[in-house]
């Protein structure tokens, strides 16, 4: 058994330098965000990118930038770096993938195809058929096919197993091969309006216990009967959408895992999602920018008088960030050692969500009355924290409420009895 250590190996350090050089040379200049543009982001994105939207943007420069960035990453297999090279990935180890993502966040460049690459990719590798992998993974890995995840429903958010979208099996016939007929509604589906494909949970056995009658399906977003409507959030942005399925025909070959086993496939997929490194690094970058601003001559004029309170508050956020970073590294190390994603992902999610909100408040507080400036132009740090303050409102809800994360930690992590 190897020794416990925190410093990376010389080879990993070399890989880190390689990623830095790649980003420096390959990131398209036209894709840098306009610091004064209003954002329309997922709450965890703070740099002003929305890659799925950007690749369909009416602004030709932005669209070209998003596509060029995807192409540059795809050439190295770095959109889905963990996938085998045969499917367009780079076959990177979990530690290398961690370093790659960490460096991309440090360079303030966007993730491409996050949902498809990080959630569906590993899910198909583990539960998909050979045909499904061949059909879908190359599209994900080259950035051509954008996926959205349809789990939540109007009456099944945190209580995901209450979902009601139904799929009824139908034999092969004139309409095509054996298929499911899907009817129902999904909601809060991130970037669904930009997606080419959806992966959804549907109820295939209404008489079975709730978790045992669910199936995981891949659905072409252009299928007849699929309609997608963006939903506006409290910021005026449209990061998510609702999806209606009206008698949509989905071939049985598009099922992942066995019929009625979809719950287990979905839980594994969420385990892949939540072990992210992005958040603590993004927060650290933002905090360092805040410190730099406060130290500048202009910052000194803007800053509140009671700076001892503020300096302690900022330092506390830094301690919390380092703790979250340590958990992310632990998760990556566990993954590298072959551990199955467990409750650590929920720890990361919980820490990140609450820290996101505290950091936004701390940052906004630093600028006193200027924290109410929403317009980016005249505001300190282009109103980054005022915007983050509202971006972060959903942080403790999205991907499962923090109460649900605590429940996962308590039952799966600590073995407490289910209620």
């Amino acid at each position, binding site marked *: 058994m190897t020794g416990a250590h925190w410093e990376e190996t010389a080879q990993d350090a070399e890989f880190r330098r390689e990623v830095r050089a790649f980003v420096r040379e390959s990131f398209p200049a036209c894709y840098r965000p306009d610091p004064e543009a209003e954002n329309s982001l997922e709450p965890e994105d703070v740099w002003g990118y929305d890659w799925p939207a950007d690749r369909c943007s009416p602004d030709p420069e932005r669209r070209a930038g998003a596509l060029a960035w995807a192409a540059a990453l795809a050439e190295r297999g770095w959109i889905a770096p963990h996938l085998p090279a045969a499917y367009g990935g780079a076959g990177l180890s979990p530690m290398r993938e961690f370093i790659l993502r960490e460096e991309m966040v440090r360079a303030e460049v966007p993730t491409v195809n996050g949902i498809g690459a990080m959630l569906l990719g590993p899910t198909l590798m583990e539960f998909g058929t050979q045909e499904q992998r061949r059909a879908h993974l190359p599209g994900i890995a080259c950035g051509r096919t954008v996926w959205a995840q349809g789990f939540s429903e109007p009456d099944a958010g945190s209580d995901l197993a209450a979902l009601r979208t139904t799929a009824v099996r139908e034999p092969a016939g004139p309409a095509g091969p054996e298929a499911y007929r899907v009817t129902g509604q999904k909601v809060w589906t991130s970037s669904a309006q930009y997606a080419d494909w959806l992966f959804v949970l549907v109820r295939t056995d209404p008489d079975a216990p709730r978790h045992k009658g669910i199936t995981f399906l891949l659905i072409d977003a252009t299928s007849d009967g699929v309609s997608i409507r963006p939903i506006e959030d409290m910021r005026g942005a449209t990061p998510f959408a609702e999806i209606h399925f009206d008698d949509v025909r989905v071939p049985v070959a598009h099922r992942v895992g066995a019929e009625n086993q979809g719950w287990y496939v979905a839980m594994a997929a969420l385990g892949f999602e939540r072990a992210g490194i992005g958040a603590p690094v993004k927060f650290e970058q933002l905090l360092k920018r805040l410190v730099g601003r406060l130290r500048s001559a202009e910052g000194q004029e803007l800053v509140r008088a009671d700076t001892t309170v503020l300096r302690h508050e900022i*330092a506390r956020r830094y301690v919390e960030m380092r703790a979250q970073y340590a958990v992310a590294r632990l998760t990556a190390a566990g993954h590298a050692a072959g551990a199955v994603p467990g409750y650590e992902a929920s720890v990361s999610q919980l820490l990140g969500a609450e820290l996101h909100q505290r950091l936004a408040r701390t940052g906004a507080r630093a600028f006193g009355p200027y924290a109410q400036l929403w317009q980016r132009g005249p505001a300190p740090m282009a109103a980054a924290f005022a915007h983050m303050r509202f971006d972060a409102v959903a942080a403790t809800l999205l991907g499962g409420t923090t109460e649900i994360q605590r429940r996962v930690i308590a039952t799966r992590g600590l073995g407490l009895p289910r209620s």
Partner: protein
Amino acid sequence: MDLTATEDQRHIRAAATDLLTDRRATAGARAVRDTPLGHSPTLWDEMTELGWPALALPEEHGGLGGDFMDLWLLCEELGRHQTPSPLLTTVACAALPLARHGNPSQCAQWLSAVAKGRILSYVRAAPHGHWGAAGSDITATPSGEGFRLDGTALFVPYAQAADALVVMARTDYREGLTALLVDTTTPGLGRHRLDVVGTTPEYRVDFTAAAVPASQVIGKVGDGGAVAETVANLGAAATCAEMAGAAQGVLDMTVDYAKTRTQFGRPIGSFQAVQQHCADMAVRVLTTRLLAYEAAWRLSHDLPAALEVSLAKACASEQYQEVCALAHQVHGAIGFTAEHDLHLFTRHATATALAFGDADHHTSQVATALGL
């Protein structure tokens, strides 16, 4: 990065758990609380037999050639089992600083003595209530072939059991502190036990014209600040180990209780509110341990670690106390009784939060490191 333990580390931890579980009744915090030395000399002899004080010391001075991480693991187990022991004080706060800053003859004499079970302690720097490594309440005045020490120091751990003390003193004619190794049998040195909330015995030590030969200066006159900093960093990091182990112990005890204690016909651990408390405890324990481990790892590899020590201690000082508060909430009245062990941890949490700098002190250090 790999956070799994080495084979050796797992052996150290397992052996410590076996011994400390076995001796809990005779050498745990409850058993030794009212004894004159505040720890069990019998258990200390057993630890010495097993090589615990020698583990992290260099081989040329009778040590076993391990590193600070090995000591850290032992401290973690001492915290988990609430076993008062002069191990942390002797090794982290005196022997290892001596190994780094002392001259060859001091090392030859004292490190081998520690390896054989002699106990050391330290008189911390910083006057009055502060935690920084500047200033001291003890003065060293040149006198004859050495120095005369005067003054009073509070919070000297295990002073009654110690054979010698590392003392940070100030001299009038020289900037900075001077570190001295003072034999506790020196005339003019008085030791008085303090009544404190924690489980570590703490003393007031009075120096009244106590004569110390110049050969006992550690490093050079005026360079004691570096010694004080080593003591503070190693002491804080080892204390974080104790806190991380203890917080884990509190979590384990609370989860066990929540699984077995029934109310309204169900185990209380099935109630959402209790689950949320336990989950919060688990997150706090995990982050405390990871930051503490990172600091200790850097120290044992001689990397700069002052920031990581402050991150770890700022985190541990708040989180361990919060873990105890949540544990009390889950335990209800039974945890408030003297017969239950939880209060030992709560006392320990209160005291260790203050040892080597509280959360505010270390948060301020972090702010300074960030450039604020």
